[in-house]
Every structure is written in C-alpha cells, then in structure tokens.
C-alpha cells in the first residue's frame, strides 16, 4: 500500500527543551489551566518540558488548592495539573516565593514538585531551546 504523507509535515521537535515560567496564581483561575494543558501536550510530543513557578504561582501547587479552583470552561485545575505530571512535565517551585510571598509550609506542595532557588531559573533559561512566560 502506498504511503500518503502530507506534502509538508510539521517538524518533529522531540528532544528539544522548553522552559515555561508561571507567575499567575489562584487570583486569576482562568489564566492557569492553559499553561498546564500546553505543557502536557509538549511533554507528549517528547519535548523536555519544565514549568518553573514563582511569585504567587506556587500556591496552585499546594495540596488541595487546585481541587477547589473552578474554571469557567468547567471542571477544576487539578485535572490539568495531573495531566501535565502524568505526561512527564517537571515542576519546579521557587523556594523564595514559597517562603516569603506565599507562606507555604514545608511539605504542603503536591508530590513531584521540587523546590529550587533562583539561580536554577537562570540555568534553565540558558539551557532551554525556548522560554515561554505566563
């Protein structure tokens, strides 16, 4: 059987690295789900995808918080967070934001979230093929 490939296929970006910087927190729920959805898709495309949460964004990752964050499109944020984690997105939270801005106690973040410092953000941004900010 003949192969019927389209004339122009989108590039296969597997193996590239994307850093997504997330600054929006629970104060604007409808701005929160698209980054998780997009990150989940990127990871499914085998793009090495990292989300870095700073300012009020780490509050989204406090256990139970996303479950009670309703979205205009229906459902809650937790399903999008779970989708991203299941697809292999790495979650990094800024330790300074967690401590000084969000008052997040130790152990309150979802399993799978790693606390890192600001220097890590510089490393990740310089190593990534692309940086996206929300």
């Amino acid at each position: 059987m003949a192969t019927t490939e389209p004339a122009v296929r989108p590039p296969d970006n597997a193996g590239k690295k994307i850093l997504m910087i997330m600054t929006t927190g629970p104060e604007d729920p409808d701005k929160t789900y698209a980054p998780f959805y997009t990150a989940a898709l990127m990871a499914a495309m085998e793009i090495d995808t990292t989300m870095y949460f700073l300012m009020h964004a780490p509050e989204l990752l406090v256990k139970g918080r996303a479950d009670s964050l309703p979205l205009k499109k229906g459902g809650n944020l937790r399903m999008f967070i779970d989708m991203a984690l299941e697809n292999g997105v790495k979650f990094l939270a800024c330790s300074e934001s967690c401590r000084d801005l969000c008052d997040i106690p130790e152990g309150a973040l979802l399993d799978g979230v790693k606390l890192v410092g600001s220097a890590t953000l510089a490393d990740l941004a310089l190593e990534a093929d692309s940086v996206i900010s929300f």
Partner: protein
Amino acid sequence: MTIENGCELPDELYYFVERSQMTWVRVDGGEVRIGLTDPAQTRAGKILHVRVKAAGTARERGKPIATVESGKWAGPVIAPVSGEVVEANVAVEQDPGLLNTDPYGKGWIVRMRPTHPEEVAQLLHGPAALAKFREILQRDNIRCMRCQG
C-alpha cells in the same frame, strides 16, 4: 462485537490499556493498525487536533506515536508494540473528529510494522480485555456516545 456501557469493543482486536491509554490494535498480515477505543474517544471528548509520527519513524513500545488534543485532554498515544511507522493516517490529521465518529474505522491513527511481533500476544484480548474495560468503565463512569459535528 461486545457493547458495554454503550461502548463498542470489537472482539477480534487486541487492546493496550495502561494509565491513560486505551488503544486498539488490529493485526493485518505482518502489520498492525492502531487507534483509540470507543471509551478513549468518549473520555477525551471532541478531538480537535491530532499529530502522528511520520512514516519511517522507529518506535519502541511505550513511546508516543501520536499526540491528541481535545481541549480537556492533551496527551500521547503510546505505541503498544515496538516497530516502524508504515503510514500515518493523514485523514485524522485533517479531520480529527474521525476519532470520535469512527474510532475503529476511518479514525485509525497509524499502521506499524512490529519489530517484536510477540508483543502483540502480550496485549489484552478477549475476556481479559473485556474484564479490564468493565473495571475502567465502572470506575470512571464512562458511558460511550459518538460525538457528531
């Protein structure tokens, strides 16, 4: 054809059911054809975009062969067996709704040539597949319907 909770589950197919994956495999000579099951398309909702790995791509079992987006779900379609992509179904890339309306027919996603044909026999089939689907349909409260338009 078995119908469970309104979901069609053709008896002759093999099934890959792990984590978020619910795909079917149809053996066709030395090749396999792969697609989403009726429960999978129902759970995803109206599918908006599909991107399939190009012909010639070699995939190990467990690696993505496609990505699917529905607005409420975005994720990979995992290769249920190792092999080489022989043909990506261009029709579903152009009309992703085929995965909803005809998941076992025109909505097939990819044809592969398995490099380890014995992996097909390791997939779920017959009563074992049905038992697994019953468990998932009940647990996730899935009732199938064909999304039109």
